């Protein structure tokens, strides 16, 4: 399959089930909402080393937030519900509670409860105040700056999907970066999915295992342009740089929509902009239950990945 001179390789992204939730972080100004959200989603690129994956989903206008202040929605994912229940209060406690003027609210309803104020209220040392409106309880925690307000819990989903991805094979580093930026911009419009790596882009995709004992992942040498000829390469001679985009979503559809939007944006730049091919990372299909086949994805507008290929 060739779109605007860009080859869509016969490959698929192999993705995994995750537990995930959405949080709404607000502050007096957009700057401080962004700051709290950036801090909370920092060092959260991959569960391998960070324990969770998280990123900013989008910025929210005051009219869209629970308290009418500027806000940011973030998505956070972990390999299990247990992990999610551990990392969310830790991150909110260290990065949002501490951030000036912030407040933190549930961005999902229903599903297993992820503790927010339920865990953080104890910081108030007995001066915490609860208020229950309908089924929702909020906590007010007196802090030096004033009060930190947050919902008691957030809802969550255990049907989230992590590890959707595609690779951009380009003639040069500049071309790969420009294409990756275009993809990330387009994918930012898709709700319910985020790209947890720096700026949404991974320059160092990995393969499973290593020659060194104890290292569970190492550089994806088949896609390293400087190793062409040294190892069995997946790169044609004209490819000078490869960048990857990894996607986590609240569901399979969100990941598929995000991948489709990103690949379409790259193909729109096309071969003229130095893009050679789109590929995807997988482990042979035996590890992850979700298979996002690139060609199906780009053929079926509105379709989702061919799941059900449960290995």
């Amino acid at each position: 399959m060739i779109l605007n001179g860009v080859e869509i390789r016969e490959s698929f992204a192999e993705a995994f089930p995750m537990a995930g939730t959405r949080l709404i972080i607000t502050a007096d100004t957009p700057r401080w909402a962004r700051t709290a959200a950036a801090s909370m989603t920092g060092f959260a690129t991959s569960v391998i080393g960070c324990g969770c994956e998280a990123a900013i989903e989008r910025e929210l206008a005051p009219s869209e937030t629970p308290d009418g202040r500027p806000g940011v929605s973030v998505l956070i994912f972990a390999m299990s519900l247990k992990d999610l229940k551990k990392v969310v209060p830790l991150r909110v406690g260290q990065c949002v509670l501490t951030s000036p003027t912030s407040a933190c609210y549930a961005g999902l309803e229903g599903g297993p409860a992820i503790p927010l104020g339920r865990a953080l209220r104890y910081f108030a040392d007995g001066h915490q105040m609860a208020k229950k409106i309908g089924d929702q309880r909020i906590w007010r925690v007196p802090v030096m700056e004033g009060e930190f307000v947050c919902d008691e819990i957030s809802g969550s989903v255990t049907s989230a999907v992590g590890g959707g991805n595609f690779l951009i094979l380009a003639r040069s580093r500049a071309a790969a970066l420009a294409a990756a930026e275009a993809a990330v911009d387009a994918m930012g419009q898709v709700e319910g999915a985020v790209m947890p790596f720096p700026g949404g882009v991974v320059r160092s995709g990995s393969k499973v295992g290593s020659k060194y004992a104890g290292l569970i992942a190492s550089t994806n040498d088949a896609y390293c342009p400087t190793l062409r000829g040294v190892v069995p390469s997946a790169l044609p001679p004209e490819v000078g740089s490869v960048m990857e985009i990894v996607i986590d979503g609240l569901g399979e559809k969100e990941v598929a929509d995000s991948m489709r939007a990103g690949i379409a944006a790259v193909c729109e730049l096309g071969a003229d902009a130095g893009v050679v091919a789109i590929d995807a990372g997988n482990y042979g299909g035996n590890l992850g239950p979700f298979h996002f086949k690139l060609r199906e994805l780009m053929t079926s507008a509105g379709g989702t990945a061919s799941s059900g290929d449960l290995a």
Partner: protein
Amino acid sequence: MTGYRLKLTAPLEARLDFSGVTPAALAGLGLDGVARKEVLLGTRRVLLGDLFEVSEAASEALVVSGDPRLDFVAADLADGEILVEGPVGVLAGARMSGGRLVVRGDAGESLAAGLTGGRIEVSGAAGARLGCALPGERLGMRGGMVSVAGDVGAGLGERLRGGLVLVGGNAGAGAANDLIAGTIAVAGRLGPDAGRGMRRGTLILAQTPEPPAPGFVDTGSHDLVALLLLARRVPALADLFGGGLSGRAQRLAGNRLVGGEGEILLLQ
């Protein structure tokens, strides 16, 4: 399902215990079945049909003529809607756990006593001890929402444990006494001696109240995000104060005489 309309044929001569007359209890009875339902008038057992003209209502709600002697309206209501055209007597909405009671008139004493859920809307005034505990019980209203457009009597929210009370008019003396938790908002003026023995919970006021009970300390004026949040999550609260809250309020904490950490928020 269609509801029923119960129209009083004459003003009540004695107090009528209306507990047990709910949309769920009347469902499927038919006009004759409803007319044959027994109720207590004073100490006498009478049939609804002896007092009311029973007809089918266009809506699913149970529509009833009001009377100041019509007691226990919507007591134990769990779902469905009761609409009273006129006043109700004492203990309307007692122990109610869900559904909706609308009173187009005044309500008597002990409205919403022991309420745990649902909504009560009163277009007129309400008597003393709104949201109090039922006789023999320790806790007052524990959940749900009550809104009274007019004035309320003394002892508002006595031993309130949860839920939201909105008062459009003035409130009598001794509000929030022994209040344990929950939120009371008063758009008019709050009478004297509020908050005696108050443990937690919030009194939100738009006007400077009469002096509260001893034991409140002024913590100063603050910009409270919690008020902004409440105003958006509870539009009725924002409406009570003219459509929005600035978030700025003077905060009196108390009642410190009992070690309480409740608050009176005076909106600014």
